[in-house]
């Protein structure tokens, strides 16, 4: 990690969703990578091209917090309709591109230097074309975008969001230097589509809290104290179709077994559930997910089909909350118990019956949850370590050590050193360290303005007996 003498490395992040408030899964993912670069002591700038509904008609209250959170923060106004369906069968990879983003990036890269550029979602990958050659380009895919239409149609759901084909998605991957996949199976698919290095960075929640398990403390449930299961989700076809199908099947189990059960459903997905069931409580959008997780005994993830990783699964594991999940919903996390790897929605319902009547030892669920959480946290750390290695390898620099404060332009030697360094900068960005036996105090001799002489270079020095300075392009 960078210490005190070198200026901080810098990164600009382009995203269609802000990292706060952390009320949606994709925002949590943006927060995860942002938090990583902050831990690495990067100076972080953020460019938001808002696609979320709460930004469609107004500037949300979080704007002030966002603006104060970054070295540079800007919202690129949309100049086109959002969330448009494909003009043909699939979206072209740049079909959602907005030239407003390009104009802002052109200005930004002309005025600021960035060591790295992180773009969220492959449909914004055209942004990489605006980055200087020596800026490391990192693509966080969030989700595979090819074959989505086919997946949705297979389950009788109209395609939504962005759906493309492999040829188009490959174009996006190839624009980057490093591709981040959100789960291992997507990493393997992406590696067949591009020669770029692909890192698997699974979602993990930094808000892990001390473990607690009401399930472990409860020896079976009763109608006085029913098993409380939680489901949280945004308003989208995947969540709506899956939860409606699940509730319809579960209703039969509840009736047949007289189950002591309450299902709490949170999030905007509630707006897509028309049916009412006596065992279901729709709480709608919630500001603070912690309260929701604290109010349930376990999370149920009954997804028969989906894309990407289930952030809600990660959130629950981080809180040591058991997850009763289909194989699809747990994909991307390592299962340690059969309740985390159920083959169907019917199997999920059978499992709920067993848990409600205490037929599954609570200790098993606790241990499996803890193991899955530990594995997920470890996977994240390993991915961060790999990402760091790739970032360093891609950050090619010249190290130039000079023995005089040449920027003072005191004599022709200084001019010569300055021109030499300027030449080297044409080849590759230099890190210039000035080592002098004497303190360099700018007040003794006012140097000519550096920025005009060296374009966007910056220089830092400490007035001490040994002075180290750095210039970078």
């Amino acid at each position, binding site marked *: 990690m960078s210490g005190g*003498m070198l200026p901080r490395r810098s990164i600009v992040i382009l995203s269609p969703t802000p990292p706060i408030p952390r009320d949606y899964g994709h925002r949590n993912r943006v927060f995860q990578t942002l938090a990583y670069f902050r831990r690495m002591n990067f100076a972080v700038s953020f460019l938001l091209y808002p696609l979320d509904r709460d930004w469609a008609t107004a500037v949300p209250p979080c704007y002030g917090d966002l603006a104060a959170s970054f070295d540079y923060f800007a919202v690129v106004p949309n100049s086109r309709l959002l969330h448009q369906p494909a003009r043909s069968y699939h979206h072209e990879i740049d079909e959602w591109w907005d030239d407003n983003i390009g104009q802002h990036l052109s200005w930004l890269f002309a005025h600021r230097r960035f060591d790295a550029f992180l773009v969220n979602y492959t449909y914004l990958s055209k942004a990489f074309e605006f980055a200087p*050659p020596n800026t490391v380009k990192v693509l966080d895919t969030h989700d595979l975008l090819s074959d989505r239409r086919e997946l949705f149609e297979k389950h009788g759901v109209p395609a939504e969001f962005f759906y493309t084909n492999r040829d188009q998605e490959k174009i996006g991957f190839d624009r980057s230097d490093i591709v981040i996949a959100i789960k291992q199976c997507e990493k393997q698919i992406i590696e067949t589509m591009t020669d770029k290095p692909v890192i698997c960075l699974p979602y993990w929640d930094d808000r892990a809290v001390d473990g607690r398990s009401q399930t472990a403390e409860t020896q079976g449930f009763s109608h006085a104290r029913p098993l409380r299961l939680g489901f949280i989700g945004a308003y989208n076809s995947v969540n709506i179709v899956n939860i409606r199908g699940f509730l319809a099947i579960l209703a039969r189990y509840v009736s047949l077994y007289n189950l002591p059960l309450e299902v709490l459903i949170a999030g905007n997905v509630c707006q897509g559930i028309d049916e009412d069931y006596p065992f279901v409580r729709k709480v709608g959008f919630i500001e603070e997910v912690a309260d929701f997780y604290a109010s349930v005994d376990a999370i149920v993830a009954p997804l028969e089909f989906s894309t990407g990783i289930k952030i809600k699964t990660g959130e629950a594991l981080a809180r040591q909350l058991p997850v009763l999940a289909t194989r699809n919903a747990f994909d991307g996390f390592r299962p340690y118990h059969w309740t985390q790897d159920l083959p169907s929605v019917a199997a999920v319902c059978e499992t709920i019956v067993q848990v409600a009547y205490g037929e599954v030892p609570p200790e098993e669920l606790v241990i499996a949850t803890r193991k899955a959480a530990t594995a997920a946290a470890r996977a994240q750390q390993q991915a961060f370590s790999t990402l760091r290695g790739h970032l360093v390898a891609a*950050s090619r620099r010249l*190290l130039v050590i000079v*023995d005089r404060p040449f920027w003072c332009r005191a004599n022709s030697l200084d001019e*010569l050193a300055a021109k030499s360094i300027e030449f080297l900068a044409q080849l590759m960005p230099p890190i210039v360290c000035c080592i002098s036996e004497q303190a360099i105090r700018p007040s003794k001799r006012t140097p000519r303005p550096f920025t005009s002489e060296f374009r966007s270079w910056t220089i830092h020095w400490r007035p001490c007996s040994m002075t180290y300075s750095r210039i970078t392009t």
Partner: protein
Amino acid sequence: MDDSLAALLDDVFANYNVIATVIVAAVPQSEEQITGYLEAREITPWWLSIADGGADSGVLFRSSNTPWEPAYAMEQTQEDAAINIMAAAFEQRFLWDPR
């Protein structure tokens, strides 16, 4: 100097892929001191030496393979010539990947 330079180099090499190190020195003693320090850390630098006496005294650009027998040396007043030599040397040495 040692502690400060060590910390600085640790920072640089931990965070960047340094493909070449160049010393631009006007004072021979400081060049030797820095060189010794770098070589102790198994960092082989190149030297761009700016001799005392002003630009008229010339520029030496030396390969680390022949530290005291300049591989690329010149006695010119034209800085452009020095820069051309540097470019040739770098291309020969590193086969630039101009990414």
